[in-house]
């Protein structure tokens, strides 16, 4: 599943990061790497964008970008 399908209070791990080269580079530079834990930290009124807790940081992503991040649910 992708990051946008992640529900609040669910925990997941980043599996792959796809999408255009520029986006991948940007995410990597911000320290969004595969293997990191993610969860939803906040949702805006209309559901897009959302804030994700990724590793130690809180990062705000729009659905368009988040949809390129494949994650794996952690139970």
């Amino acid at each position, binding site marked *: 599943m992708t990051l946008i399908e992640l529900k609040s209070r669910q925990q997941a791990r980043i599996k792959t*990061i796809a999408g255009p080269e*520029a986006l991948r*580079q940007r995410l990597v530079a911000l*320290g969004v790497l595969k293997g990191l834990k993610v969860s939803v*930290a906040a949702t805006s*009124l209309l559901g897009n*964008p959302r804030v994700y*807790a990724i590793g130690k940081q809180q*990062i*705000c992503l729009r659905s368009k970008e988040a949809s390129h991040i494949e994650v794996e649910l952690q139970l």
Partner: protein
Amino acid sequence: MSDNQSYTIALIGNPNCGKTSLFNQLTGARQRTGNMAGVTVTSREGHKEWRGIDFHFIDLPGIYSLANSRVEEMVARDYLINTPPDLILNVVDANNLARNLALTTQVLEQGLPVVIALNMLDELEKQGGSVDLIELGLGLAKPVMASDGRSNGHIPELMDLLLDNIDQPSEPLAITYEPHVEEAICSLEAVGLSRWQAIRWLESGGESVELVNDEQRKVGQQALDLLSSRHDESLAEMIAEGRYGYIHGLLHKSSSEHKDQSPADHWLDRLTLNRWLGMPIFVFLLWVMFEATFTLGSYPADWIDAGVSWIGQQVGAFMPPSLLKNLIVEGLIAGVGGVLVFLPNVVLLFFFIALLEQSGYMARAAFLTDNLMSKVGLHGKAFVPLVMGFGCNVPAIMSARTIEEPRARLITILINPFMSCSARLPVYVLLAGIFFADHAGTVLFGLYMLGILVAFTIAALLARTITSHHDETFIMELPPWRLPSGRSMLLHVWDKASDFLRKIGGVILVGSILIWLLQSFPMEGMSWLEQLGRFVAPLFAPMGFGWQETVALLSGFIAKEVIAASLVVVYQTDMNDMAGLQAALGAALAPASGLALMVFTLLYMPCLATIATIRRETGSWRWAGVSILMGLVLAWTGAWLVYTLATLWL
């Protein structure tokens, strides 16, 4: 200057790690800081003498990587390559060491001389973390020192460390990457690239390094193709894995784990970012800000007013009646004093904006409003320039440089003048105090909201008429909550206050005298000012403005503060305090006209400085012209509408 030693030191680091704070500590400068990314857009320079040697410091914009092709990153990258500094001061945020050190490894691979300043240790320690500076320094083979952007106690030590590390040999760092990547690096090295150039070429997917000949380009492309056929991951990821592998090895020895977020911060986020409460809280905070700007400001304003009228009376009693006396009392003291009384309001507004910025709330507000912004062709990043516009439109328009997509940038620039700058505040405070004394704060809030509404409407229209080049991604890091540092708040507010005072001493003083002269001559018959006012007044008659308001608005073309000064000078009868002015204005204008005058002031064309900035930043007079025309048309229509509706209502 060969006899006089001078060294250049560049500050590099991630956005929001405290570079500008440290730069200010080092050089005694007062550059703007803020708890969010993107506050520093161009590099700033400053000096410090230390032990007889001149140090030249450069504060580069914050960057996450040297291998991305964004404006800020290109500024920093080109700077390091074209004019390498004598030493780099790499500022590192201790709370997010791994990611901050990823940039450090890029700099170290390039073999540049580096000293590392570990910032924000106080925050780390509060959350129960720690870093062994010696161990970290040994691991990186570079000097590492604790620093604090908020105090200057350690500055002498830091200066000595910098001095000691000038002209020291510097070995490039060697990180071993995945075998296929190493293979590619080797092939690029074989055609004459250095190792760091090869790595950066790969990391940026074939950008960021200029390849000089066909052979290099061929080998480079082959390496990229081969790697992308062998791996699903992007090269950026593969190389990042190498970097983080190295960094985790380092940190394993030198740092201890800490909690992610304190309970209080977590609670604050839960509240301010709440899906249903977030927006109402944002709007409420803005309302409180304007209400407080008005109410709290009125007390010191009264004292200033009393002081000014006392001076006026003293001068009046002391000087024999003459034209000069009239000039001084009715022109100079009245005009300058008339604007000076609004100093407390302006200071308070800046104080609140700084509070929102420094605490980290602004970045959260950018998140809350992003959806709305995206609907009008904008971008969460446009939020910073828009909010800065509440202060002054000139730096705000300049800060739109961080927006890369040309359409979004142009829109952000063109709508910025509708963000009501602090120069317009005196007019609102004056008029709202007269006509809507009981709800002045709300009227103020309403005006700012109207400005925002107009800005968004115009943005939506522009977005439909100008074609967009590409969509810019919106990826923003939320900074941690921070208690604003008293020192930087004070500096910021003091800076703004002194700007305002300087303007009073300059353009407002001259403007007041000019208005008084035009008002007093010729001595017989109708004054020039009145003639001019009456000539243009028919244009404004539909809003119920007299020639006095007309003249005030005309004078505001130079700078918006002059509007208030003009009103004071023109209306001053034989009164010498604010109460008299209020009575005179209240008698001359209907409340509906007062409201229309505020709306007109809010929307009509940008001041001269802003026009010049629009021209410079867009590179053409055309957009500056559009901005003027748009402002005038909107202001007239808006004011007329408000007047018409208000006469029905009030």
